[in-house]
């Protein structure tokens, strides 16, 4: 799809603001109402994503990073999941609207696929096993663009070439299970890019892959992004994987922002004990570490988020104040901000 498709400057009847950021999330709150109580998965997440920008959302499993993406896409399982507060704006268009019950509904399903697309972690399970990849790629073009069968197949081959799948013409009729993990992820990326979305959300795009393949996929993503000017959100638990590609990072814990800022600043000068803990628990090449240290304790029970700073029960720096007062997100210099009462102490240790 090299030709540019004339896009309507309206979305769901509302004008698109050409100067607004591609995606603007403000104070997003998502909770799951289950029998045992309320699981607060996302608590006040905010971020802004501009054209051609790459934002990494970093956190352990259960930190609310995937759930926040689902809320943005409007694919949250409702119930039990509800957006209880916040705004999500796509190029100035509000995607959420309050309903009678006081929660928020996603009111612009048109963004899915054509404006905001998603790449999933495991392409083997995210591709339909009974159809060829060419058919699945072509389906997007047939359905959303009204392509004929023949054009859709050519379009599918073009897409596969764009994500650098070798001998695309021969492989267009293969089934997902006939591809290697890396190639499958390329197919997934091709599918996400098929409708030229403005924003691409990649949910752990490389977690299921070999380390060498991980690098290739990240490279591909950033190349494609440079080509198209797409805004890219990378959801990950591994800062090292995204450090080369991302511009900014949001570190999440218990659905809250722990640290935000320029990726290089956060990577080289982590200012929150949680960020530091995450980095110490993963091998990295530029820092000689004798042994990897896991973060003590276990991820928070989102049914009972600790009072004060949610990280305090696991935090080596914790003092009394941490269990009573939620630290504000304060600038710590060098282009980032940390939500820790004792960020100076953390910085000293580095």
């Amino acid at each position: 799809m090299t030709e540019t498709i004339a896009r309507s400057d309206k979305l769901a009847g509302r004008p698109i603001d050409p100067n607004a950021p591609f995606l603007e999330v403000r104070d997003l709150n998502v909770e799951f109402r289950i029998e045992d109580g309320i699981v607060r998965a996302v608590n006040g997440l905010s971020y802004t994503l501009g054209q051609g920008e790459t934002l990494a959302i970093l956190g352990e499993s259960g930190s609310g990073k995937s759930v926040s993406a689902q809320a943005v896409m409007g694919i949250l399982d409702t119930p039990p999941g509800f957006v209880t507060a916040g705004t999500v704006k796509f190029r100035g268009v509000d995607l959420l609207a309050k309903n009678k019950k006081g929660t928020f509904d996603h009111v612009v399903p048109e963004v899915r696929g054509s404006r905001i697309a998603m790449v999933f972690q495991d392409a083997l399970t995210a591709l339909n096993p009974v159809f060829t990849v060419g058919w699945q790629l072509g389906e997007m073009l047939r359905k959303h663009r009204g392509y004929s069968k023949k054009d859709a197949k050519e379009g599918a081959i073009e897409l596969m070439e764009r994500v650098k799948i070798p001998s695309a013409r021969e492989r267009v009729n293969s089934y997902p299970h006939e591809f290697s993990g890396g190639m499958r992820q390329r197919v997934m990326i091709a599918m996400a890019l098929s409708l030229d979305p403005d924003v691409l959300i990649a949910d752990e795009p490389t977690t299921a892959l070999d380390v060498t393949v991980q690098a290739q996929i990240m490279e591909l993503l950033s190349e494609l992004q440079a080509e198209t000017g797409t805004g890219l959100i990378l959801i990950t638990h591994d800062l090292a994987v995204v450090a080369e590609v991302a511009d900014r990072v949001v570190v999440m814990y218990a659905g809250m922002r722990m640290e935000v800022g320029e990726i290089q600043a956060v990577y080289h000068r982590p200012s929150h004990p949680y960020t530091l803990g995450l980095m110490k628990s993963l091998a990295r090449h530029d820092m000689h570490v004798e042994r990897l240290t896991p973060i003590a304790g276990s991820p928070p029970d989102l049914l009972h988020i600790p009072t004060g700073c949610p990280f305090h029960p696991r935090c080596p720096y914790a003092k009394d104040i941490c269990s009573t007062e939620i630290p504000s997100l304060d600038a710590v210099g060098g282009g980032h901000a940390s939500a820790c009462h004792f960020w100076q102490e953390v910085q000293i240790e580095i």
Partner: protein
Amino acid sequence: MTDDLRPSDEPSTNIDPAIDVEVEAEALGRVPDASAQDGRTASLWGDAWRQLRRRPVFVISATIIVILVIISLWPGLFATHDPRDCNLIDSLLLPSSEHWFGTDLQGCDYYSRTLYGTRVSITIGIVVVFFITLIAIIGGSIAGYYGRAVDSIIGRITDIWFVIPTILGGIVILSLVRTRGITTVSLVLIVLGWATLLRLVRSSVLAVKANDYVEAARAMGASNFRIIVRHILPNALAPVIIVSAINVGVIIAAEAALSFLGVGLQLPAISWGLMISVAQQRIISAPHLLLFPGAFLSVTVFSFILMGDALRDALDPKLR
């Protein structure tokens, strides 16, 4: 692997992501390609088909079923006499070169009558199973996909239906009807028979719905209808096809049983159940009256059940 056939509330984990013929044919038809032409289809249905062709059980049962279907469509091609042109002089003759299966009390050619009986059995079997499957797929997908209140309502109705035994329910309902033709009997069997299969579809849909590709389809902007038809059903139908094949046999037997009990089809209709019913009064003096329709009935039911077995083996990758 009888687990596959048992309707269960738990989503079965070993649902094979195979696919029904129509969808696959359509998919291949849309993208005619070199690999399909040189016979290298790697789809799960393609695998299953290659498996099936090599299985004697499948070949035998499929051959018998094809022959039965041809007989039921054009019984006149094979019959030696008009089944209703009877001569009382020929009453109760034993099998001979003139009357291969002998004659019945009315002097009708029993071979021709048995062949014409195929039509009733096959028609009722296929029509009833078609509608049962249709109801089950629609109801089961809606219950499984939408869940919650819709699921509860459909689930409770299904539960209530489970309480009614097919044959007993059939006797009660049909005994209230004065004239009973193929339509009446089919209708009653459809009304009584859908519950089990609906549960199977529901649990199968539930299992498939949990897959990432369903969420991915949603993230790519597919509508609910499209997700169900394109992404869930092709992956959820394998166990349904198996049970439906077996169901054809079960329904044919049920029709015969109802007709035998005197609440199914009525004379002058020609049906194996009716023929067996009349034959039982003369089982000693004219055993051929019981033998031939009984044998046809058994072979027919057996073939469909064998077919179901063969399909199950081919569609369940764990048994390969």
